[in-house]
């Protein structure tokens, strides 16, 4: 349940940001990462960005999370 998934910030408006999560647009709260900028990658947990992460790390993380997710659904 403590899983957090990486996504890229598309735009920011107040405390909300639109993110690109594997092609889906998602709106999350950014109050926990006030320094975030459009273009950054963040880890998202329960509708909140909780950590800014490097692009390369985000890509790697996505690939194994995808495998884990498929596994959990089996």
């Amino acid at each position, binding site marked *: *349940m*403590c899983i*957090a998934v990486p996504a890229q910030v598309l735009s920011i408006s107040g405390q909300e940001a639109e993110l690109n999560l594997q092609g889906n647009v998602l709106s999350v709260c950014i109050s926990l990462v006030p320094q975030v900028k459009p273009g950054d990658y963040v*880890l998202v947990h329960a509708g909140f960005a*909780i950590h800014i992460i490097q692009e390369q790390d985000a890509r790697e993380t996505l690939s194994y999370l995808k495998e884990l997710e498929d596994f959990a659904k089996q």
Partner: protein
Amino acid sequence: MQNNENILRLVENIKNKVTRPVRIMEVCGTHTMSIAKYGLKQLLPPEITLLSGPGCPVCVTDQSEIDLALELSLLPKVTLFTFGDMFRVPGTKGSLEDMQASGAHIHIAFSSLDALRYAMINPQEEVVFLGVGFETTAPTVGVTLKQAQQNNINNFSILSLHKKIVPVLENLSSQKDTLLDGFLLPGHVSTIIGKAPYEDLAQKWHKACVITGFSPEDILTGIAQLLKQINSENFEIGLQYKRGVAKEGNTSAQAYLKEYFQTSDVIWRGMRLIPHSGLAIDPHYAFYDSCIRFSQQHPPQGKTQPPEFCICGDILAGRKNPPQCLLFGKDCTPDHPVGPCMVSSEGSCAACYYYGR
């Protein structure tokens, strides 16, 4: 898998490092899933025993806490929001899913803000958010409380069953029969709290500790780093999951934890009361505390007993394995879970049922 060679190299490195039998607890439910998925137990040398720890918030929620949520969901005017993970967990008189089927107003939320938004547009209802999770999740609830306050929302409250990970790990370390050598510490709890709160595990309890990510490479690297600490008896808080954790953690999130929560003594499933291991709503925000609003006691001590024969507590403490439970795979299956370790896909019993251990 793309990185087979890399995996084999990491396993070889572990084989070279292991000098005696060691017991390592993977604290996070996502670690448990990843270990099962990639068959890591089968790859590791027999000297290494991996135990699933208390790091799935659903699994450690006590039955009496679930009963408290069920009770609130049945009160007039109440609409209860829960994360999907908690929906099917059985309490004494059924699950939230059962309550919904018999007419209670229960919604599944992706975020605590979903519940707040619902409260804003439905002022005639009493909206309760069932707050479950560790330090990863609790700050998000803190932000939601701040927004509730800023918007003068009066029909919203939190049933805070949040828990802290460090006190339970210290509690397990203090029990002689758990015989643990080290911990693969959880990645995303550490994203928030950083390294410092774990310090006593290494210094006082002499446990090897490495904050570890979730890919098979992460986990194998974490185990190798643990072995290095165990061999040298030089215990410290290692940080393997550097891409997701800053040494100092997320200080904004820590500020929300500090402002909106206070530590409390709570029950962990099968482990009884652990002092200072809960995160209750801070008294300054009592107005938003469901327990106070609806005059309920938390923790609801001694009110209910866990299901007969369920050994979730011993499993979460690493003392027993799921197949040692009399109900495992017979009366207790993922379709008809008796205890929460079978409900959550991250639970030890469910992982064992699906993938063997």
